């Protein structure tokens, strides 16, 4: 399942999947700005059929945080 998440990240940020890990963040991925962040939220919501809350969206510093929020929606990654 992790690979599914990484796949989405790779598509949204237009980078090679091998460059992504749990510690990846806006600091390490150049295309990860607030604009692409929204596209990411969209892609994740559509893929896993969930809806994030605003507090979840503003509480993402790394990919590990995304996993944590997905877990809260019963998506085990």
């Amino acid at each position, binding site marked *: 399942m992790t690979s599914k998440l990484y796949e989405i990240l790779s598509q949204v940020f*237009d980078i090679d999947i091998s460059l992504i890990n749990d510690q990846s963040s*806006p600091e390490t991925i150049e*295309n990860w*700005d*607030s*604009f692409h962040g*929204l596209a990411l*939220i*969209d892609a994740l919501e559509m893929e896993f059929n969930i809806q994030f*809350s*605003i*507090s979840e*969206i*503003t*509480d993402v510093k790394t990919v590990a945080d995304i996993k944590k929020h997905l877990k809260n929606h019963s998506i085990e990654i």
Partner: protein
Amino acid sequence: MLFNTLDFLIFLPIVLGIIAIFHYRKFQHIFLIFASLFFLYYTDNYLVTLLIFTILLHFYIGRAIFNANSLRRKKSLFVVGLAGSLGLLGFFKYSDFSITQFNILGNIFDLGSEISLLNLALPIGISFYTFQSLSYIIDIYRGSLTPTKSLKEYALFVAFFPPLVAGPILRASHFLPQLKEKLEKSNGSERLKLFIIKNADLKFGISLMAIGFFKKMFFADNISPLVNNIFSNPIGMESFSIILGAIAFGVQIYCDFSGYSDIAIGAAAILGFKIPLNFNKPFFATSPSDYWTRWHISLSTWVRDYLYYPLVFKHRRSSIMVFSCLLASMLVMGLWHGASWNFIIWGGLHGIFLAVFTVLRKKYGKSTESFFKTKFGKIFSIVVTQYLIFFTFIAFRIQNFDHMWYAMQKYILLDFNTSQTIEIIKNNEFPILLLILFTILHYISYKKGNLPELISKLKLRYWILFLFCIVLPISLFYVGSAQEFIYFQF
């Protein structure tokens, strides 16, 4: 109290001394709160009551929101909290601006007599501590923060004197745990954590403060006359003079503001508090997006988390809505800086640049990727970005529309004349030298990484030499009176 005064240089050691001597934990905490209120009272007198009111309002509203048992009640309390502090900020900061606009409209529609201005004094720091307090209740309302049960803890979070009057804007989720750790009595054999002034923190804090004072008093204050020479009336000036003025102002405001942040972060560090970076080499930004992760970071993240995301959350499917929300957020950020159209224009320009850049990157990002990865590509993107950034500084600096319009035109439509510019350079040799020196030092700092940390690790005698190298130029070229920090007016 201004940082760059003898008063502060006396105040700080006294505060540190008292904390170091009186180890009684609860006393230290209360003492720091009162020292912070005194710090504000020193310059603002009775207006310190606004800070006290803001503290009490948000503490109790925050608790009430958390304990409310219905969403409706949570929402009403939240609205009261927002209205309370935004109302205060709006009243003190924006009433005259609103009245002026109303009067202008009134003249256009021939409504009769004008409303007279209130001429209220702007309470120092109100823009900063209001935003800081708002983030507290918004986080509680969103459910991502548990309010603190202790008014004393909350009061110190808001009133803490190092970042009080000009930031960085702190987040409760980042600061309160540090405070809790210091105050909580540990059971068993663990030591009590007090406000212990550790050697490492002291050296790092002093190094950072020294760098801040150097930026402000040696660079910013001595470059200011050059900026004034050019922008007090730019009409008739050559393009190159305008560009020089924009660059000089950019460096001035960077040194002024990041210098202040350095002093604030350094002073907090001495007391053992970690405050996040507010500036991260913005002049090396490779795009408008990148710039906003490097300039006034505590404000840009605040606007992103509490303005942009809530606005765009519901409309993110439509690109047009996303860009509108982006522009709206940047306009508000501009307005936050001051009750004046030039700041709104400044914000608007940044919003437009961000939007255009995002569109361009989406369209051409893949095909130009290899170019921008080269060294030349990187330099090219820095130069273009900075050209745009310094252009926006014109709006930030000039309030008169005719002057602003003239300067902007000259900045873009170059006339290639040089005689006047050369004359200005000749008459302002020292500021020009400072600009060159700043560029060199800034580049070294960019390449080396965390300069303050490296400096604080120097052997004692070299560290003393460093301090000497800071104090000597400042005192040799001291302008004569404490020049106010630019961001005090916000």
